């Protein structure tokens, strides 16, 4: 059976826009919300987040991917600011 560590993004606020704030959140997650094993998945839960901008999300998501790789998963959301931010940071580089 697969294990999941769910990270509730709303714990960091409901308006998440800046890089410094994202960097701080990443530091907290890496220090205090560690998966219990090296096979446990890390799920990002965006429930009750109101405003997301790509700068904040890039710091957290890209930072977590660098540590946990494919074990980082995104839970579905209907919030358009989260969806558009994800689309932006996952888009291929232009150069």
């Amino acid at each position, binding site marked *: 059976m697969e294990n999941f560590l769910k990270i509730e993004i709303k714990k960091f606020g409901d*308006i998440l826009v800046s890089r410094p704030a994202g960097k701080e959140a990443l530091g907290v997650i890496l220090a205090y919300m560690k998966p219990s094993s090296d096979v446990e998945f890390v799920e990002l839960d965006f429930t009750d987040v109101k405003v997301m*901008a790509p*700068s904040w999300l890039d710091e957290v998501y890209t930072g977590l991917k660098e540590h946990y790789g494919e074990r980082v998963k995104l839970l579905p959301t209907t919030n358009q*600011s989260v969806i558009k*931010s994800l689309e932006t940071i996952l888009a291929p580089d232009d*150069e």
Partner: protein
Amino acid sequence: MFAKYFDWYYYKNELDSADISETRDVFQARLDALLRNLLRNKIPEEDAYLITAVIGEMGNNCFDHKQGIFKTLSHVRPDLKNHQEALQLAFEKKISGRFPEKRGNGLKFVRQVLNGNPSRGLFVSSGDATSNFGGDHFNPLESMSNTSNGVLAFLRWRIS
């Protein structure tokens, strides 16, 4: 309503400190107030959240770079010819002003939220260049020369 901001931008007139976000913290506090105001005025949640995200991303860019669009991008693209080219590059390409850091998403996000929607538009003036993004095209500087220091941005978002 916007006259005093034009005067500040063009003629360097004084502006009340209450109209300026001097630090990122002040800007963040204003962003919180903006969202509360939008929701209090019955703006649909999805629009209110996206408007706040767009303004939050653009505002934070000012604090991330502090140099304006042309100067920031000139560091990574020394071949940039002018303000117009810099403006297009900033909003249309995934490029960072802080190479080799893999960044530079924010303004592309802004464009993606606005594009294809006739009720959303952004006018940006930077140096001697202007540009429109989104489906609603307008130019609040029509009768003025387009040369000034810094960046002026107007977001227009109509609720149907």
